[in-house]
């Protein structure tokens, strides 16, 4: 956000302005964080009407609890936490299936050895494959088949390019559990693709 002098307001400034009565500043917070919130809501809630209500509920909650924001994380992460929890409550109310909480220890051991996100994501070899016209549609279908939590975590990590720690903070899960869920989600995607499509289609 830029003010009349062209300066960018930080999260701190925006929060402070809202708490001092400048309601319009909250509109700016909303605009700054809407994209991440939309990703979470869309991945966790399939019904369009529910999404509409939940999205508004998330920001009303954020507004009411803004005084409790302690600047221990980015404001977008804090609002994403509210979004995730609100969606999770919605799923629980609707009794939709959530992934099991148990962790596979063998998987954990292997995942612990994984290096953190590389600075540049090497994709040169994948470009030609990915440009296959149908891949996006196939992948969309595969992602839609994942449980909502897996869908959300994999989107936050691979699409939003958040770190394990940020995803962990948003989901309120230990980093090891996030890694485990991501591993399983990727594996499910690969299995789905390999079972349902010939290699040439990918």
């Amino acid at each position, binding site marked *: 956000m830029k003010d009349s002098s062209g300066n960018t307001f930080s999260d701190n400034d925006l929060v402070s302005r809202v708490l001092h009565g400048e309601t319009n500043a909250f509109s700016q917070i909303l605009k700054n964080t809407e994209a991440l919130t939309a990703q979470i809501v869309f991945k966790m809630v399939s019904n369009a009407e529910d999404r509409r209500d939940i999205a508004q509920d998330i920001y009303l909650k954020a507004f009411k609890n803004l005084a409790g924001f302690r600047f221990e994380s980015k404001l977008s992460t804090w609002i994403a936490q509210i979004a995730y929890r609100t969606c999770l409550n919605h799923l629980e109310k609707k009794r939709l299936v959530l992934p099991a909480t148990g962790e596979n220890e063998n998987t954990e051991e292997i995942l612990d050895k994984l290096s953190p996100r590389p600075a540049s994501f090497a994709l040169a070899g994948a470009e030609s494959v990915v440009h296959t016209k149908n891949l996006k549609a196939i992948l969309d279908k595969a992602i839609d088949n994942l449980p909502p939590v897996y869908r959300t975590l994999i989107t936050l990590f691979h699409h939003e390019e958040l770190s394990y720690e940020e995803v962990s903070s948003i989901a309120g899960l230990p980093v090891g559990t996030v890694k485990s869920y991501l591993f399983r989600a990727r594996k499910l995607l*690969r299995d789905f693709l390999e079972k349902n499509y010939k290699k040439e289609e990918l």
Partner: protein
Amino acid sequence: MHNHVADAVLQQYAFDPGGLNEVDSSHIRECSLCLNRAETYRSIFHGIRTQPAASFDFDLSKAVMSKLSGESEKSGWSPWATFLAFVAGILVLATPSYIYRKSLYLFIKVHATDMAGAISTTVIYLVLTGVLAISLFQGYDLLRKYQRKIKRLNYY
């Protein structure tokens, strides 16, 4: 080829080929099955990364801000109305008492003995204690509600 590498290793290879040890890397490069799987992972990662971002099909900002304005208007008069009603109540009770204070004093003085005879002291104390306790709880609750609303009001 046998002893194919684990899925976690394949995922790591697809994600960051340089992050693997040479044994696993060379196996993947030479094993068509593992290489195919790694390529599938790579396609998945890239496919997710290049998916169009989700966005709401309505003006979220407008919807939220109008709700906040609505709440502001509602909570804007409520604490003051409560406060005014409280003050008005006190005035309604206190004004006649003040105006007719002499008559009231005489009335109490004259009938005090009869009243005391009719109602035992214990009952009076019990009633007074009950009234006082209820008043205290109600006053505290009113104060908390008022403070909460004022706090929210200050955000606008």
